[in-house]
């Protein structure tokens, strides 16, 4: 009996560690990194740097939301750059070449992104195909589509409204809009992941497919909806990034895939375990972005910067995670994915 109480107390402590302390520590580290940046650049820390970190992490978070859910359930969504390119191309081509209305263009882009997310989910859940191959192939298909719809034309321009919202030129209370949106994205993500039925179902499915099935959950439906959410999120990111850079292009999403995975992992999500928290993912995103900015400000050559960044991510991964370097006592789940 007392053993039971002890275990419960331990679990509570460990869960508080996960949901409250870890994100706080990561956010504090992000700030600390910017302050320590003083050592390499006299202009750090600064309000501009904070705003830049928030802006870049906002884009990262939108992608990392779906990516995190997919990873919770043991998958990996490599179609992110493809969906971003396609969504960006659709809205830009629709508005700047076909003179279509902005709203329709946005709905079209998001609808197509959602659709391909669902296709990913169908292939993974019904056909039991390995997620990373399915999404890798889907990414190639989508980049092909983007190439096709922008092909031979002038590179399509972003609708003005998206530029104002996401390029940093638009400001609210003197703060760049994307920096403010970081908090909006954070709150929405938290509500979906921690407070909605969909979020709870995703966690249950991630921790054990079998348990989920025995509990009478519509397992396939949940899995498909997870991939659908990831596709939808990448679609939103596509709209944001086309506004950020002003033109739709194939490479729009390539630079965001790996950072999104890194943020999820450094945030403590364990692949296929149903363990991982949104607040940790986005604060890990803040920290990693702050680190890239400080590395950027060092005068070392670009090759060394890559080396440095790689090493930092590895160190961050090893030091923020309790599951690595320690043999797990319990098998978490026998997940066929």
């Amino acid at each position, binding site marked *: 009996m007392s053993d039971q109480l002890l275990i419960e107390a331990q679990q509570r402590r460990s869960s508080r560690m996960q949901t409250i302390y870890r994100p706080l520590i990561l956010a504090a580290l992000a700030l600390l990194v910017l302050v320590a*940046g003083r050592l390499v650049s006299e202009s750090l820390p600064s309000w501009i740097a904070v705003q830049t970190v928030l802006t870049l992490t906002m884009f990262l978070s939108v992608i990392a939301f779906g990516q995190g859910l997919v990873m919770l359930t043991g998958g990996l969504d490599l179609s992110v750059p493809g969906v971003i390119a396609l969504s960006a191309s659709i809205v830009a081509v629709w508005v700047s070449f076909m003179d279509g209305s902005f709203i329709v263009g946005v709905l079209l882009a998001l609808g197509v992104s959602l659709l391909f997310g669902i296709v990913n989910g169908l292939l993974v859940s019904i056909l039991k195909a390995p997620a990373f191959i399915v999404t890798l192939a889907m990414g190639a298909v989508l980049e092909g589509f983007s190439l096709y719809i*922008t092909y031979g034309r002038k*590179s399509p321009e972003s609708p003005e409204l998206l530029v104002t919202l996401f*390029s940093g*030129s638009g400001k609210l209370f003197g703060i760049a809009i994307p920096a403010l949106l970081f908090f909006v994205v954070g709150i929405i993500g938290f509500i979906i992941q921690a407070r909605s039925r969909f979020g709870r179902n995703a966690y249950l499915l991630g921790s054990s497919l079998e348990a989920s099935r025995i509990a009478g959950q519509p397992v396939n439906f949940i899995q498909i909806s997870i991939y659908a959410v990831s596709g939808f999120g990448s679609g939103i990111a596509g709209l944001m990034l086309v506004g*950020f850079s002003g033109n739709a292009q194939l*490479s729009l999403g390539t630079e965001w895939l790996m950072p999104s995975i890194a943020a999820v992992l450094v945030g403590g999500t364990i692949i296929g375990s149903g363990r991982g928290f949104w607040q940790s993912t986005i604060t890990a995103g803040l920290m990693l972005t702050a680190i890239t900015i*400080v590395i950027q400000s060092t*005068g070392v050559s670009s090759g060394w*910067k890559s080396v440095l960044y790689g090493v930092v991510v590895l160190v961050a991964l090893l030091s923020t995670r309790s599951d690595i370097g320690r043999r797990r006592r319990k098998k978490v789940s026998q997940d066929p994915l």
Partner: protein
Amino acid sequence: MKRNWKVAALAVIAASTLALSACGGSSDTADAGAETAAASEAATEAGTDAPASDNGNPCGWAAPPRAGGDKYVVYMSSLNIGNAWQEEAVNLGSAEALMSPYSDCVELRTERTEPDPASQISQIQSMTAAGADAIVTFALSPTAINATFKEACDAGVTVVIYDATVTEPCAYNVSYITAKPIGSDIPFMGYNAMAALIEMMGGAGDIFVAHGVAGTSVDNVHYLSALAAIEQLAPDMNILTEWDGNWDSAQQQKETTKALASNPDVVGIFCGYGESGCVKALKAANKTIPVTGETSQYFREQLLAGWPGVSIGSPPAQGGIAMKIALGVLEFGPDAGIPHDIEVPFKVVTKDTVKVCEEDTYTEGCNVFPAGVVGDENTADIFNPLLPESSLTSAKTGVPPAGLVAVPFTVEEMISFEQDPSRRYITREACPEGWTQGKLEQGLDGCVQS
């Protein structure tokens, strides 16, 4: 009179057969074939001679077509990466072959290469097998495709590479990489861009430097020559930070945004290709400082609006010029003394020299299109003194507007475009006979007379 009628009838039949065969061969050339057919039909009606033959060859060129036939098979190939520059270059090359007088002598086939060397290798092999007389292509690697190019040369194919160069000696390199910009006595884009940046900054201040795709030979040439300019012209200038821009405006924008966060006091950016990203990041940060960039429409429009910058870069006109060189080699033969190393001059454009191109065709000195005519990433450097027959229609569609005729090079002209032997090492990794490897003034390994 009767005989004339017969000749005309024959020509019409021949032309329609050609058009049909073109349709069967490749959908890309269907329109082109039809155009050519129409053109030769018109020519016959006007009473001029169909492909003449002093020596029995089509158009009287040096050797008969490899595949037999009555036209030379010429391939124009570009990289399929959805890039406006590549489109313009391949379209200008295609349009060249479809202009009179070449249209009577050449069967054009256009292809696109996927961006991996393996697919380019198999593509070049099938072009060679399909009876190509000449292949004009963008090469994915300076060395990886050499063996395949050698096979093609050995089979009698004229291989012409534009923009990026290859080290295989039998291939013709047509490139701006080691050239002097128009109006400058010093070679290298990187050197000239940095020199202009230093001048705009008043000779002092600290800068950011962006690489292209780091580790590529082209990026090295730009980067090292830019460093040499700093050393010679402004030794006190510091590089605050460097990044890999990957010749990609989205990447450039992200990196510039990050760099500005930690070094807001920067006074100049050596940006290179993807410069619209650098400028957009600066605009978001409300900073107007000198930027070097390549030739995008967006950047030139910014210069037009008064942005302090220098626009200098690889001209897509190289596609058309490379085609003219290939056709020149077919016309005069490989032994006519046409150099294998051709330099294409390029423009330096600042806010003081930026000038709108009002016409569809070449106008001396113009270097930006009116707003809205082309996309942000297109470039007005489809116009080049070596390609006066260029036009916006050609660059957009790959088909020349009616009435525009090619201006073929003479052998003497082509000889005059030859690369200076001192810069040969940069593109060929070897020096010509009588020269040995040595350092150039612009900080690069080159050749010196021994």
